[in-house]
């Protein structure tokens, strides 16, 4: 059932993934990089994310294509009793159910944690929902943007009072997926982890990574520091150079390094400026310092300046767009991007010396292309398949001959 060899951490693990969008598929993609077999259960019309684009890859939205590489696809409509019946049979032979049911949806489908345990007592079932599995917002519809805007992260981009700006990356989805991955791995790592319900959410994940802000805003002694004041700062775009922008951090180890650096770029005037007299004074005045440094930085190329800063024991990196970062030699050194039949694929964010982690370069499946094969492997008989197909509960037998997306 799986092509992985015994070396991987999750070899032999069978994961049923009923999620759509970003969070769940990101989680199951990473489970696959660790050796798990992932069976994607999607409605007959497919994961809605498949239609998010352009760009499209073989008719599938580019993001959905990358997130669903290496998975098998079974088309089943879980909003029908027959669909739920099929899922129940698949669960007998599975180790993990990843889903996006809130408590109320699980109840309406007869798939609550206790009910799942009667089907398979060792099953780990993990939900990853937008708002969380319970509470007044649990069943509200939401996408990445609604979760970001509920979490408050948007407040630290753009200009106060002007149209809001969201984080361009899909952070709610990816971090929600990360928390689901953590929950499943922690259950698998535990002596007592099997046979239980786990719950994670995109909003919970975004709140989690905002914990430093939550603590800082909790009635501090004084309203000092960048965490408390960040909402009212102007947009932070680093410092302009002759040919781009850099993000600069002052020397950390010695005051002399700062003096030498200012002299080197011809900024002696800053050394006489009382607002920047010590590192402790420059720290909270960073926005101001950036503005004052800019006329000097504009005289040098980004490359030249980065070299000067690093030599002065400061930190400086160019503000790069996607093209620049993907082609930076640092990414090549890390093997962060691989080739898969002429298409680029991102590697997972961890590396080891044991070959436990293998980037998935197989293509994404077409909708339901593995339905008949998977159901047969799980013990469905040809007669049953024919009957399910005739009632429309699963695609016809010819569906898997229409080819995948390769």
């Amino acid at each position, binding site marked *: 059932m799986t092509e992985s060899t015994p070396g991987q951490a999750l070899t032999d693990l069978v994961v049923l993934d009923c999620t759509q969008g970003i969070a769940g598929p990101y989680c199951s993609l990473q489970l696959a990089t660790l050796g798990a077999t992932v069976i994607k259960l999607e409605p007959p019309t497919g994961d809605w994310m498949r239609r998010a684009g352009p760009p499209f890859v073989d008719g599938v939205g580019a993001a959905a294509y990358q997130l669903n590489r290496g998975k098998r696809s079974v088309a089943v409509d879980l909003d029908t009793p027959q669909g739920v019946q099929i899922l129940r049979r698949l669960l007998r032979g599975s180790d993990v159910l990843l889903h996006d049911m809130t408590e109320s949806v699980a109840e309406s489908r007869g798939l609550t944690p206790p009910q799942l345990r009667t089907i398979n007592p060792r099953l780990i079932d993990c939900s990853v929902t937008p708002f969380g599995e319970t509470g007044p917002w*649990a069943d509200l519809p939401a996408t990445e943007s609604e979760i970001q805007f509920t979490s408050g992260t948007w407040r630290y981009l753009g200009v106060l009072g002007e149209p809001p700006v969201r984080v*361009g990356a899909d952070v709610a989805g990816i971090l929600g997926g990360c928390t689901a991955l953590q929950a499943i791995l922690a259950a698998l790592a535990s002596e007592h982890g099997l046979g239980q319900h*786990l*719950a994670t959410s995109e909003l919970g994940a975004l709140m989690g990574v905002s914990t430093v802000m939550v603590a800082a*805003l909790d009635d501090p002694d004084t309203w000092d520091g960048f965490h*408390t004041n960040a909402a009212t700062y102007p947009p932070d775009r680093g410092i302009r150079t002759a040919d781009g922008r850099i993000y600069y951090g002052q020397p950390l180890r010695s005051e002399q390094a700062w003096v030498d650096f200012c002299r080197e770029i011809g900024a002696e005037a800053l050394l006489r400026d009382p607002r920047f007299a010590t590192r402790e004074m420059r720290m909270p005045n960073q926005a101001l310092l950036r503005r004052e440094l800019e006329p000097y930085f504009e005289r040098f190329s980004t490359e030249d300046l980065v070299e000067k800063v690093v030599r002065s024991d400061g930190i400086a990196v160019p503000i*790069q767009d996607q093209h620049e970062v993907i082609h930076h030699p640092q990414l090549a050194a890390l093997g962060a991007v691989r080739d898969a039949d002429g298409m680029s694929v991102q590697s997972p964010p961890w590396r080891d010396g044991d070959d436990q982690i293998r980037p998935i370069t197989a293509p994404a499946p077409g909708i339901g292309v593995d339905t008949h094969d998977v159901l047969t492997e799980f013990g469905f008989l040809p007669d049953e398949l024919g009957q399910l197909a005739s009632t429309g509960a699963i695609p016809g037998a010819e569906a898997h001959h229409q080819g995948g997306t390769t």
Partner: protein
Amino acid sequence: MTARSHDPARLQAWPARSTHGTGPLAGLRVLDLTAYAVGPWAACNLAQLGADVIHVDPPYGDPIRAVLPRKHGEPTTYLSCTLGKRSIVLNLKDPGDHEIAVELAKNADVLLENSRAGTLDRLGLGYADLKDDNPGLVYCSSSSFGDTGPLAAMGSTDPQGQAFSGFASLNGSNGGEPEVLRYVALVDLATSMQLLNAVLLGLVARRRTGRGTHLRTSQLEAALSLQITRFAEYFSTGVAAQPTGSGTYAVVPSRAYKCADNAWVSITAPTDASWEALCRTLGSPETAALLVYSSNQARLEHREEIDKAVESTIATRPAAWWTQLLPRQGVACTRLRTLDEKPEHHDHIRSNGFIQRVPHPLGGDLAVAGPVWRFERTPVALGDPELPGNHTRELLNQMGIER
């Protein structure tokens, strides 16, 4: 702190906690040699999962302690990353203290570190130094740009990670210049999440192989992974994405709209059904006319026309009107909220435990984010924040060391 003289033979392995957590990792021993935020918050999460975490604080103090603000005189950022750990102050350059750290490392299940590449090797606390004595050790390192390659030696902070990785290039007003997400430390804490994943996958692998391993992640790799959906777009087109304000590249409508009361709502209709529901519910002649754009493809092609019609209709009513009405019809619509409006007072945040209060070590309490997972049978819980060195004496006593 002065050197402590003791007989190594009398060192008593791991000074276990008297009570264990109930989480899935109950009893697991974690040595946390990290500083700043990435490592400390990852270790905090391990403590929530039930692990027995010992954090080594340097005698000069974790540099993150300089970050303001403070509550009851203690820096909130430091406190929020210490929950549930026991802190011991050790000077790793002092031979006596060093020996204690090595003893802890030899008896740990997991070691976390985020020093610059090579630092722990020089201190004799690298993976190569420990793996023979402790073959089961899951040793996890987090660096800035990765432990190899031309930038291996460079450090970074959260905004530098955003700038270098392309993360910042996706943020900004529509058609405007890229900007950095200010001081949430989201990329740093996302790195914590990947460091935690590394620990957990190492533990799962160890159950299978019986051996530990050295796992590595970095701020750069975590920041790249946060952009996987956006790089997918770039890999297909070869064109670097630009900021799109509150909107998205792939779905129309999806944006923030200003309401009659000057509050903003976010509305997204990713499916044909939700689009139809939106047009019917908005109920204006302009929006009814939009029903002809019955696929996302068609809507992407008429982005401006759709935006204008939705915008003018949304502007006629207050935010509460729309957040009551639209979700009931299956349309994603939420009011824009902020962390400084005390989300913990909302029923939803409370019932999911997203924000919780923990006892402040100097009195009163401190609001922090709650655990990011629920476990039905192995429940997790937040520990309490700690002051540096709070457990030094207790841990040394347990190890049989007299000062």
